[in-house]
């Protein structure tokens, strides 16, 4: 294909994907590297890209140490409990001790944060969440990133990381193509910070046809952060820890403000409270440490998100659905009613559209809830992502190899969804992680670690050929058939996505199997994924837009395989409500109080799995 090759050379810090993590990275990199060359490569337009494109109505991670509200260790304990023990506490503590400064910065830039008139502190939705008018959250942080970067390349789909040809396992930049012009882009860089986001649409969504885009996590979250890093041979962790969310039915409108601020609650079809009914049996399964049904009223420990899902799923399976959110009481207060609607308009407009279309007025009718299809991401109530180094003052030796948030590939850093073991970072925490990674990346360069990088012409040419192959393939085989999309020599990206979703759903615990899987199913799933890998060599793209979808699919496929491998490796049900291993239904602390770590060999595609210690650096309740 005769596409131009555009080379940007001598980059110091390349930010791949400028969502909340990437914008934080670009912004902070300028401070530590005032003379450094900082470049952003982003698949969409950074003004409205990523999970926060629509805006947010809450910042879900804010300590409030300034107001004496929480300390970082409190947050570590909370996230640890929510994730049934499995977190990287060094990374969590580190994020939590910096996160407030990001939020205060946002306010200084003009972000409207609601205040509590009595205390002067920010208005809280819950212990960790504060309320904002955040429709313009993304344009605002994008503005900051634009001010810091030397250049922003919008509409570049990054497909691969470049590797150093002079030293094994060291990054040297990235390549991709421009979604508008088709040009081939080569970024030669000393360090790369990947903030390319988590994955939706890996599992079959509940919606079909036209509605397939209505997923909770954005349809453009293609798991590229994982795909890029897995491909480069970076170690991954906690990839089995996918998330299932309880949300308003069909629109997937968030429930956080409803539960926490509007004080709404749920009930089954008979109008009964059902959650607590499922907890005694569940407590047998997970143990008292995680769900103390007798002591809960004293300890006030929040019940882990996945366990609440478990109650929801079981109640529905017992035939007592639908589960309703009781809004009729709260919405009698006009102020709360307005907040309820604003909450959607600020972050999930589709839910407001749905209620208007179906005449659901929550003031007079309690709306239905549902549990979503699973998503793979590292910044919400779940911790998938790369195995990264922690900061020097907090991390035990197994967690520390020099540069904060650096993956096991030298010079390659992560932020937000990209980093594993750091759940409950959310938007503010992702931005903060980007800042931390940027400081470390600058230090890595200043320490001379990036000296002597060489990228061969051969590598650049090889990747170029690989990237455009789906279009070549289409050209060669298209005219063998009369018309239409059925061809014996290729599948198109949509057909591939449908296949991926079906097999992930059925073999890796999606919605249609009630989030259940076992060893046998996973082995079949892995085999099918391997065969699919062969077919992905034959995926065909009719135009540049389909080429984008083809590469999104390939990144999703890599992510899926990693999820499947991790799910097979962890022979227990650690997070009931997110997924179940039918052949190992109990949580097994004796053998599995560990973090799972994988590496895919970039040459052979073979996986190696290992267990890493789960260190608790913050005590129980001191």
């Amino acid at each position: 294909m005769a596409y131009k090759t555009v080379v940007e050379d001598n980059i110091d810090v390349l930010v791949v994907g400028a969502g909340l993590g990437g914008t934080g990275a670009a912004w902070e990199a300028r401070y530590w590297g005032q003379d450094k060359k900082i470049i952003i490569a982003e698949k969409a337009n950074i003004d409205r890209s990523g999970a926060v494109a629509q805006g947010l109505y809450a910042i879900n991670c804010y300590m409030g140490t300034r107001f004496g509200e929480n300390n970082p260790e409190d947050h570590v304990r909370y996230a640890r409990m929510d994730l049934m023990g499995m977190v990287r506490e060094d990374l969590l503590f580190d994020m939590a001790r910096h996160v407030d400064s990001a939020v205060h910065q946002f306010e200084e830039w003009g972000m409207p944060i609601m205040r509590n008139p009595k205390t002067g502190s920010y208005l809280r939705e819950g212990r960790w969440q504060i309320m904002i008018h955040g429709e313009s959250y993304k344009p605002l942080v994008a503005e900051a990133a634009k001010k810091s970067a030397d250049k922003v390349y919008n509409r570049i789909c990054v497909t691969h990381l470049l590797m150093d040809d002079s030293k094994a396992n060291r990054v040297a930049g990235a390549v991709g193509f421009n979604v508008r012009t088709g040009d081939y882009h080569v970024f030669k860089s000393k360090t790369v910070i990947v903030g390319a986001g988590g994955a939706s649409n890996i599992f079959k969504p509940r919606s079909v046809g036209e509605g397939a885009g209505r997923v909770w996590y954005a349809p453009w979250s293609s798991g590229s952060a994982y795909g890029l890093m897995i491909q480069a041979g970076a170690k991954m962790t906690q990839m089995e820890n996918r998330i299932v969310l309880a949300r308003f039915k069909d629109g997937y409108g968030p429930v956080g403000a409803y539960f926490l601020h509007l004080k709404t609650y749920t009930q089954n079809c008979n109008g009964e409270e059902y959650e607590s009914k499922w907890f005694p049996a569940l407590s047998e399964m997970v143990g008292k440490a995680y769900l103390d049904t007798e002591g809960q009223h004293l300890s006030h420990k929040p019940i882990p998100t996945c366990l609440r899902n478990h109650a929801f799923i079981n109640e529905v399976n017992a035939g007592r659905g639908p589960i309703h959110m009781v809004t009729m009481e709260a919405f009698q207060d006009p102020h709360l009613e307005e907040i309820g609607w604003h909450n959607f308009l600020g972050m999930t407009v589709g839910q407001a559209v749905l209620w208007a279309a179906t005449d659901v007025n929550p003031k007079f009718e309690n709306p239905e809830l549902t549990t979503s299809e699973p998503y793979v991401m590292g910044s919400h109530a779940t911790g998938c992502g790369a195995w990264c180094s922690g900061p020097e003052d907090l991390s035990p030796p197994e967690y520390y190899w020099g540069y904060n948030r650096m993956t096991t590939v030298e010079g390659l850093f992560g932020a937000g969804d990209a980093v594993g073991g750091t759940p409950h970072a959310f938007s503010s925490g992702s931005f903060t992680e980007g800042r931390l990674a940027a400081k470390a990346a600058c230090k890595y360069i200043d320490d001379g670690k990036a000296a002597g990088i060489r990228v061969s012409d051969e590598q650049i040419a090889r990747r170029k050929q690989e990237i455009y192959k789906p279009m070549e393939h289409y050209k060669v085989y298209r005219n063998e058939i009369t018309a239409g999309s059925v061809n014996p020599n290729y599948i198109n990206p949509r057909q591939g996505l449908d296949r991926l979703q079906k097999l992930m759903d059925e073999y890796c615990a999606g919605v249609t199997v009630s989030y259940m899987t076992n060893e046998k199913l996973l082995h079949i799933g892995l085999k099918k994924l391997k065969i699919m890998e062969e077919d992905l060599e034959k995926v065909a793209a009719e135009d540049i837009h389909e080429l984008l979808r083809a590469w999104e699919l390939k990144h999703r496929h890599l992510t899926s395989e990693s999820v499947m491998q991790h799910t097979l490796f962890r022979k227990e049900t650690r997070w009931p409500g997110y997924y179940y291993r039918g052949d190992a239904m109990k949580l097994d602390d004796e053998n599995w109080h560990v973090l799972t770590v994988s590496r895919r060999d970039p040459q052979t595609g073979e996986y190696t799995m290992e267990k890493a210690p789960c260190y608790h650096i913050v005590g129980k309740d001191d």
Partner: protein
Amino acid sequence: MPTFVYMTRCDGCGHCVDICPSDIMHIDKVTRRAYNIEPNMCWECFSCVKACPHHAIDVRGYADFAPLGHSVRVHRDEEKGVIAWRIKFRNGEKDMDLLAPITTKPWGKHIPQLRDAAAPSQEMRNSQLLFNEPKYIRLDEGGLHTLESNGLKFKAGVYY
């Protein structure tokens, strides 16, 4: 659809094409006007709707669960720093106007240029601090939180 474009309003300016995070607003080669090329990859995020200078884009809820006859319109004004919404139910019983601020300051003016900030000292570089810390974290002059500053001890290897 879920987004669609009114023929008589669109002038093909391409703002929607420029902004859609899903790369699905495209200009039709024949009519020279915008349309949604892949409705099943649309999030109803309203980014294109907000960006269109002629209010030519609208949303019709997803066909697999949303009946016809409703409307959710929006007007975002960066100069005034507000966003206005109008929601109409299909049965005509509810018609709401909602207004919210999107910024408290002139757009982008209060974001500093870090290239011009005083360069960080070596001490800052060696510390765990980020730009403008610890000032941005605490009101008092206290430093950054460490385990020790919070009265904690490092507990590597403790399992429970």
